[in-house]
Every structure is written in structure tokens, then in C-alpha cells.
């Protein structure tokens, strides 16, 4: 049985090393060092953070609770996530074990993921992403749904109303008995999203009666064509069989209709133009897990369908003038098999096979090209073996090797080494280090998209070193955990799309980038009285990300310069005060200035975006009424009405309000 408890401890997040709760006078130390996590730099976001409120997307959650940079083109508009100054396509994303990055772009729009649909999110920084999958040169985001824990029927209903005619509805029905667990979630979000802002990019001139210019002012404008209408449905079913077997199925369907906001320098009237994107997405994963005495087996099969339609047109005298339009359809089949073998208390061996087959049919219409972009399928085969060794209690080592095949191309083996050492056990102070080589294979757009796609592209190659210290302590009245990590990373053959002389864009392996810096996080809580708890969580990142590639020509002034749109520093802070049935949450986040040119022109009019500080505040009251649980929550976003942009000419909303009413049975 000892074997079994060790195995379960290793695989099911139960305390592994020093499984017992240690009592040191009034100090409780819970050691949570799974062999699986040797040397891993990970940020864990739990349900408390993810289910902060119904209107938040994963993009909002990540910008407020982690060190990643979220490049957002507006509220409920494309939001991409960058780890450590890399590009959004260097962030790999999985949902219930299946990779969900766009096979065409390699990115994921996190504004399309309602945070209420995710029960746990783990951010693997740098080399640590290789524990999950390859290709995450910046890192990886693992999003997971978890079965409910409470037996019986459950219901949760949330109604949200916010500024700009925003309505959010959420319904969750759950049922669980000893064998079966089911959860059905529905989200519907709609908004005119036509927030007002002072347009600093325009000026209105005022003339006197004689027609002479008298003065000018920046006009108040509204966010044009920013509306959205999103519906998501997520069904999960889990069946617990005998002998530690578990079967699961999760199906997620979404339909999104979103206007694409006009630039702040656009003088066209949105009532005359339609600029809209419609997406339909179906993601599904079937899973089987079996836990034996020394082994764990897991198999998953999945399927993803996505269609994306984009249309930009105007009509004149009942004649439709198409500006641009595009359609793409992608189908991805997925299969994965993993085995873990607890060879001894000191050794854990793991291995896995994974395959994807993706077919994409894409076509567009623009002045530069009309017709098929590409209509191709691509198989991928991934394999990994992992060995984890803990020779003595204070020291662990892990080695991971991955191999990936794309169609007939074998990517060079991807190796990674991880180590950790316990420096001081009472506070669980652990020194962690890792080194890894990583590759990212070009996306299907990179290779095949016409016009421009380049079938001769090489995979991007990365080399990363990480070293850091983490600590975790829990006392009767307070807990404290945190980490500081330094990293150094080199990426070469970085794929970059640049325009050619015909007017369309082409990718090539041109860039070499050096990323380095520090990531820190701290999480503390105090139970001040029986009814009063204060929690404080913060993150800070310093991420210089420099282009060190060969100059394009002698006029190229980009060598040694920070990459476009990558802030050198970012920080956030979450302070939560819970008193009886009241919760006050203060959230603050900051991004330093970002350059918009590769040469970091500081004198160029539009060369940099100002740093900004964002503050949100919410107050929630829970109460019981007729044996039902209720919550009322008010939120003020952008408390100080800061004017800001994260991307040029894309103004973000100023102060705005939301109120939520929640019923739970």
C-alpha cells in the first residue's frame, strides 16, 4: 500500500515528499513537492481567481494575475498572450490535454475563452512548458475542467449587467453521485461595447463667424463597430468505474459574432460599413484514466472544428462594395496516450504519444488576392519520455526528451533537464534550475498561405536556462508563498512576416532574439480575526527582449533593440479583504512603455505607447435566503478612468461598471 500512496501522491497532487502535515510549534508546513514538478516554474490559477466574475475572459484573468503580457486590441477584441517577451505564437495552449492553438496562426485569442469555463489554469514558464508539450518557446497555458466535488444536484445562475449595454448570463447545472458526474455550463454575453473616449488622435477645428480658425479640441468619440454577441456551451460528463478507472467527456461549442472596432484615426462612419467576424468552434475531448498500484494510464481522443468568417464591406446605391473578406474551415483530430510508472520511491518514469491531424481550407478576397489560400492537411506525431529521480530527499533531477514529426519532417530531438534542491525545509525553500532546447515548427499559414506562404521555412529554435527560488510556508494565522526566477533565452530563425513589393506579406526565418530577465510572484494571506481575512498576491516581471539578428541592411537600426510591443516591466497586485459575508477586491496592474517600431524610435510621433496603471475594484456580499445562496457584486473597472491603449490607435474603455447577481443551489 505504501507504493500506492506514493504513486497517488505523485500523480494526484497529494503531498508527496513529507506527505504528513508537519507541526513545528505553531507552524504548519505542508510539503507539496511532486516528482512530476521537479524544477518546474509554474503559475497556478485556481477557481477563486478564474471565477472572479462572469464577464471576464482568460485574457483579463491572465493580465491581472500573472507575469505574461496580454496584447489586447480592445475590449472583447483579439487578445494575445506573450510569455517573457516572445511572440504570441510561442505560447502553447491546451484545454483538457488537447492543444487548441489555431493551426493557421499558431496563436489563441484568449478573449474568446470565458474564464467561467475553466476550473484550473497552469502557466508553465519557459523550459517548463516541455513537461506539457513542445513548441512553447515562451511558455504554455494549460486549461483544465475538473469534475465537481459535491454530490447531488446543483445550480448556479449569474446575471450581469454592465456599462455599454452589456449583458452577461451564466447558467450551470450539475449532478454527481458515486459513479457519475455531469456539468452543463452556458454563457451568453452581448454588448454594444460603444464606449466613449476622448480621441487624442483627432481634433475638431472651430471657426469663427468670419470663417477663420478659432480653436480646436479633441472630440469625444465612441468605440465604433465594437459590438459582440457570444454564446458558449460546455458539457462535461465523468464516469467513475471500478479499479481506479475514470471516463470523461467534455464538449465545448461556441458561436461568436463580433464587430471589429474601427481605428481611432478612421474617419468613416460605422453605420455605412460592416466590419465583422463570425466564429463557430467545437472542441471535444474524450478521456480515460486508470490508476494502478504503480502505474497510471491515460488516453485521450479529441476533435476540433472551427470556422472563421470575416467580412468588411459597404453598400452604395444598393451595390455592395466588398473591401475584404475571408473564410477558413479547420478540422483537427487528436489522440494521446500517456503512461506513468512509479518504478520506486526514487524513480518516476513517464512516456507519451500524441498525434494530430489537421485539415484547413482557407480562402479570401482582397485587392491583392482572390481565391484559395490553401486547402491542405497535415499530420503531426509527438512522442516524449521523461525520467524523474529523487536520490535523496533534498535533491531531485528530471530529464525530458521530445520528438516531433510534421508530415515527413523530423524536428531535431527536444531535450530538457530540470533539477531542484531543498535549501531550507521549514519554509520549503527550494532552488530550481532547468535548461532546455526547444523548437517551434512553422504554422500552416507560415508554410502554405497564398499569397506569401513559404514552404522552405525552418523551425524556430530556442535555448533556455532558468534558475529560481521558491518558498511556501503556512502558519496558523498566515500563509506565505512566492518565487523569484531568472531566465536567459535565445531564439533563432524567428519567423517574421514582412511585406513584399507586391503588397502582400511573406514569412522568413530572419530574426534572432535574446530574452532574459526576472519573474517574481508573491502570495500571502492573514487571518486577522475569526471573521477577517486579508490576502495579497502580486507578480512582477522584467523582460528585456532584444533583437540580435543580422541587420536587414546597413540602414537597419533594430539591432539590440527591444522587440515591438513587449514591455520591459509588468506588475500586478490583487488585494482581497474578506469580512464575514463581504469581500472587497482591489486589482492593480501595470505595463511599462512599449515601442511600436523595431528601431525603438523615441522621437517618432507614434514610436511608443505610454506606460499605464490600471485599477479595478469590486465589492461582493453573499447571503442566504429561503435556503438558497445569493451573491450581489458590484465592479468598477478602470477606477481612475485612465486613458490608455495597449496597441496603437486602439483606445480602451475608461471607467465602467458592472453588477452581478448570483444564485446558487
Amino acid at each position, binding site marked *: 500500500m505504501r507504493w500506492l500512496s506514493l504513486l497517488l501522491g505523485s500523480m494526484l497532487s497529494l503531498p508527496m515528499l513529507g506527505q504528513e502535515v508537519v507541526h513545528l510549534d505553531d507552524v504548519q508546513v505542508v510539503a507539496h513537492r511532486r516528482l512530476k514538478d521537479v524544477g518546474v516554474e509554474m503559475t497556478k490559477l485556481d477557481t477563486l481567481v478564474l471565477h472572479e466574475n462572469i464577464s471576464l475572459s482568460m485574457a483579463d484573468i491572465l493580465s491581472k494575475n500573472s507575469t505574461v503580457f496580454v496584447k489586447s486590441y480592445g475590449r472583447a477584441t483579439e487578445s494575445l498572450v506573450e510569455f517573457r517577451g516572445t511572440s504570441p505564437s510561442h505560447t502553447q495552449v491546451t484545454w483538457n490535454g488537447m492543444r487548441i492553438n489555431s493551426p493557421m496562426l499558431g496563436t489563441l485569442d484568449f478573449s474568446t475563452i470565458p474564464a467561467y469555463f475553466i476550473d484550473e489554469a497552469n502557466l508553465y514558464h519557459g523550459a517548463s512548458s516541455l513537461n506539457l508539450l513542445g513548441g512553447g518557446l515562451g511558455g504554455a497555458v494549460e486549461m483544465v475542467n475538473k469534475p465537481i466535488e459535491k454530490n447531488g444536484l446543483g445550480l448556479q445562475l449569474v446575471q450581469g449587467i454592465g456599462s455599454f449595454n452589456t449583458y452577461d448570463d451564466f447558467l450551470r447545472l450539475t449532478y454527481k453521485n458515486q459513479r457519475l458526474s455531469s456539468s452543463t455550463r452556458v454563457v451568453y454575453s452581448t454588448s454594444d461595447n460603444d464606449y466613449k473616449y476622448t480621441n487624442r488622435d483627432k481634433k475638431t477645428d472651430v471657426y469663427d463667424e468670419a470663417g477663420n480658425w478659432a480653436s480646436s479640441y479633441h472630440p469625444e468619440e465612441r468605440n465604433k463597430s465594437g459590438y459582440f454577441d457570444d454564446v458558449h456551451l460546455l458539457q462535461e460528463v465523468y464516469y467513475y468505474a471500478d479499479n481506479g478507472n475514470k471516463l470523461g467527456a467534455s464538449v465545448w461549442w461556441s458561436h461568436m459574432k463580433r464587430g471589429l472596432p474601427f481605428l481611432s484615426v478612421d474617419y468613416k462612419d460605422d453605420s455605412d460599413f460592416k466590419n465583422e467576424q463570425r466564429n463557430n468552434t467545437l472542441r471535444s475531448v474524450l478521456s480515460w484514466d486508470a490508476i494502478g498500484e504503480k502505474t497510471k494510464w491515460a488516453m485521450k481522443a479529441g476533435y476540433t472544428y472551427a470556422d472563421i468568417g470575416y467580412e468588411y464591406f459597404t453598400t452604395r446605391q444598393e451595390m455592395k462594395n466588398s473591401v475584404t473578406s475571408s473564410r477558413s474551415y479547420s478540422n483537427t483530430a487528436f489522440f494521446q496516450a500517456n503512461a506513468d510508472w512509479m518504478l520506486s520511491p526514487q524513480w518516476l518514469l513517464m512516456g507519451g504519444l500524441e498525434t494530430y491531424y489537421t485539415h484547413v481550407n482557407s480562402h479570401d478576397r482582397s485587392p491583392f*488576392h482572390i481565391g484559395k489560400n490553401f*486547402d491542405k492537411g497535415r499530420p503531426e506525431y509527438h512522442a516524449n519520455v521523461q525520467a524523474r529521480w529523487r536520490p535523496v530527499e533534498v535533491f531531485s533531477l528530471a530529464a525530458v526528451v521530445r520528438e516531433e514529426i510534421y508530415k515527413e519532417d523530423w524536428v531535431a530531438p527536444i531535450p530538457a533537464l530540470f533539477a531542484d534542491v531543498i535549501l531550507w525545509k521549514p519554509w520549503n525553500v527550494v532552488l530550481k534550475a532547468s535548461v532546455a532546447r526547444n523548437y517551434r515548427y512553422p504554422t500552416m499559414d507560415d508554410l502554405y498561405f497564398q499569397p506569401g506562404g513559404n514552404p522552405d521555412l525552418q523551425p524556430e529554435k530556442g535555448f533556455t536556462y532558468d534558475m529560481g527560488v521558491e518558498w511556501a510556508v503556512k502558519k496558523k494565522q498566515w500563509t506565505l508563498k512566492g518565487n523569484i526566477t531568472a531566465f536567459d533565452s535565445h531564439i533563432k530563425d524567428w519567423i517574421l512576416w514582412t511585406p513584399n513589393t507586391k503588397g502582400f506579406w511573406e514569412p522568413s526565418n530572419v530574426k534572432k532574439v535574446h530574452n532574459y530577465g526576472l519573474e517574481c510572484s508573491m502570495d500571502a494571506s492573514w487571518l486577522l480575526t475569526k471573521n477577517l481575512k486579508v490576502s495579497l498576491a502580486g507578480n512582477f516581471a522584467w523582460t528585456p527582449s532584444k533583437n540580435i539578428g543580422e541587420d536587414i541592411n546597413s540602414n537597419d537600426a533594430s539591432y539590440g533593440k527591444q522587440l515591438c510591443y513587449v514591455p520591459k516591466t509588468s506588475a500586478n497586485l490583487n488585494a482581497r479583504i474578506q469580512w464575514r459575508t463581504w469581500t472587497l477586491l482591489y486589482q492593480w496592474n501595470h505595463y511599462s512603455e512599449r515601442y*511600436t517600431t523595431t528601431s525603438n524610435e523615441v522621437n517618432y510621433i*507614434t514610436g511608443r505607447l505610454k506606460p499605464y496603471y490600471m485599477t479595478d475594484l469590486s465589492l461582493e456580499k453573499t447571503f442566504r435566503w429561503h435556503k438558497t445562496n445569493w451573491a450581489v457584486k458590484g465592479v468598477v473597472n478602470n477606477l481612475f478612468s485612465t486613458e490608455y491603449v495597449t496597441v496603437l490607435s486602439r483606445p480602451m474603455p475608461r471607467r465602467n461598471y458592472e453588477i452581478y447577481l448570483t444564485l446558487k443551489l
Partner: protein
Amino acid sequence: MLLSASMLTAACSGSDDGTEEEHFSSSGQGVFILNEGNFNSGNATLSYYDPEKKHVENGVFQRANGRKLGDTGQSIIIKNGIAYIAVENSGIIWGIDAETFRVKGQVTTLGTQIINPRYVHFVSDTKAYVTDLYSPYVNIINPKTFMWTGAIATQQEESRGYCSTEEMVQVGRYVYTNCWSYSNKLLVIDTETDQMVREITLSSWQPKSMKADKNGKLWVITDGGYSMEDESFSDNIPHLYRIDAETGAVEMDQALDSDEANVQIEMNATKDVLYIINNDIYKMSITATHLPVRPFIEAPKDANGRRHKLYGIGVNPRNGDVYVGDAVDYSQAGVVYRYDANGTLIDQFRVGINPNHFAFK
């Protein structure tokens, strides 16, 4: 010919929000350089260069007016002391005082009449034509009042959904415009009736640039469409044509050998010499029968032999100086090379992102 530092004094000029607007006074014969910027970024800018002092001022539109120029600057042309700037993806044509750079007026889209303005051509002091990438009309504006006054239907069958019109030249009472997007047509507009009266069909597709010489001949260069693995539109071979404007007869047709040429034509002041970007810069007499074998100015190369990407060309009508824009990596401040009429480099200076068009005062 003055653009001194004393004239760049910053002062608040009537703005109610404290935005400073600089006062410029450039009474000389300088050059405006339009920097296209990046599509969908709103970072087009305007530079002003004093050839005598070899001094450039960047971002002058925003500095003089406290507002951005817009998204994707396409063309600039000066008439009666006003520089008209078509900013296509913003859907606006600015008119600025060529000395103070202050906005005198603007023509906006007025509904869907103008969608993506490309070029402005002056028929008279009170009438100008505006071509458009997406609209099936050539719009008419009054450049004095900045009012839209009408539109000329191009009467083209939508070629694959598009009916674009591009550059314009005038020979006598007729204005000629080239239809680039999926077309092989030149349209002829009667400026007295504001009607499209006929069209000229070319053997090659996508006429991209056009100028008229002193003999009433049209010089047209096409980009030849595109040719890809699964899709092609024509043969991707650029052609250079000389066409008699009056009869529409093609008098010269030369296939060019580059399929990656940033094809663009400029003409000198006396309209007897052509300058063509076709990777390098070629200079050609209007009496020549084909493009010279050797370029007039080779695109600058760096130590590794990589050629700079020439993005725009302008020829000073006063002295024949040739200005060429280098886009570098398309995401940083570009460089303008200034050559004298003999092709000797005189100066080079940084401007804005993707310098693509020049206007000489």
C-alpha cells in the same frame, strides 16, 4: 527656403486641452515626404525636407496640428499652396497649408462616397478627381471648399469584385486613370462632362503606375498579376507600355524580367525622361524603344550584397534631383536617398515608416 529652428517654437495655439501645436513657416522650395506607415496601425506621418540646408523635420503634420495623419498614407500633391494628402484607410483627404503645415480643410468619406482615397488630380482650381481602391466611382471634389460635388461611374464590370482606380494624368480635356486591381484597363474621363467615355485594354494585367509625356503619350507599367502554386492571376510578368493617349494605340510593349519589382514611374519636369523603380532605378528617354539594360541608380547594397528595398521615388521638377525611399524592414523609420540629376548621392536622411510618395513645393 527657410525652415529654421526659430520657426519650430512650440506654443499652445488655441487648443482647449493643452495640446501643443508647433508653428512652422517653410516659405522655401522644400519636399514633403509621405510615410505610409503600417496598415491598421494609424502611424502614417509626414516629413518635410529642406534641400538647401539638408535638414529634415519629421512628423510635421501631427506637430503642427495636434492630431494624427491617419492610417496608410497613399499620396500627396500640392496645388495653390495647399498640400492634399490622401490617407486611404482613414478615408480622408487632408488639405494643409504648404508653409505652415496647418490643416486648411479635409474631405472625409461622406457616407460611402469615398471609401479608400488613393490619388487626387486637379482638373481646375475648383474641381479635382479622387480615385479609390474600393469604390466603383471616381469622386469629384472642390479643392477650395473641400466639398464633395459628384461622382463618375467607372462603368466597369466588377472584376472579381473590385473596380479600383489609381493614378491620373491629363492629356487635353481627358483624364486617364489606370485600374489596378484585377483589371487590364485604362479609363478615359471627359473633364467637361465628367463622364467615362472610353477605355483602353492592355495585354498585361494590373496597371500599377502611369505618367504622360510631353508628346501626349501614356507610359504605363503593370505588375502582371500574381502566380502561385494553387492560384494565379495572369502571368506575374510586368510590362511597360507607351500608348498614344488620343488613339489608345499601343506603340511600345516591353515585358520586364523581374516579378518582384516595386513598379513605379516618375517623370521629370519637361516630361521627356522617365524614372522607373524596377528593383533598381532606371532612367529612360521618352524616345527610347526599351528600358535601358543598366540601371541609372543601383539600389544601395550592404556589405553582404543585400539590396535595399526601394519603396518610393520622386523627381524634383526644379533641378532633376531624384529622391528614393528605403523601407528598411517596414517597421522602423525609413531612409530617403537624394541623388542629383546625374545619379550622384547628395544626402540621405531618416524619415517615417515606409516613405512612399514625394511632393515638391
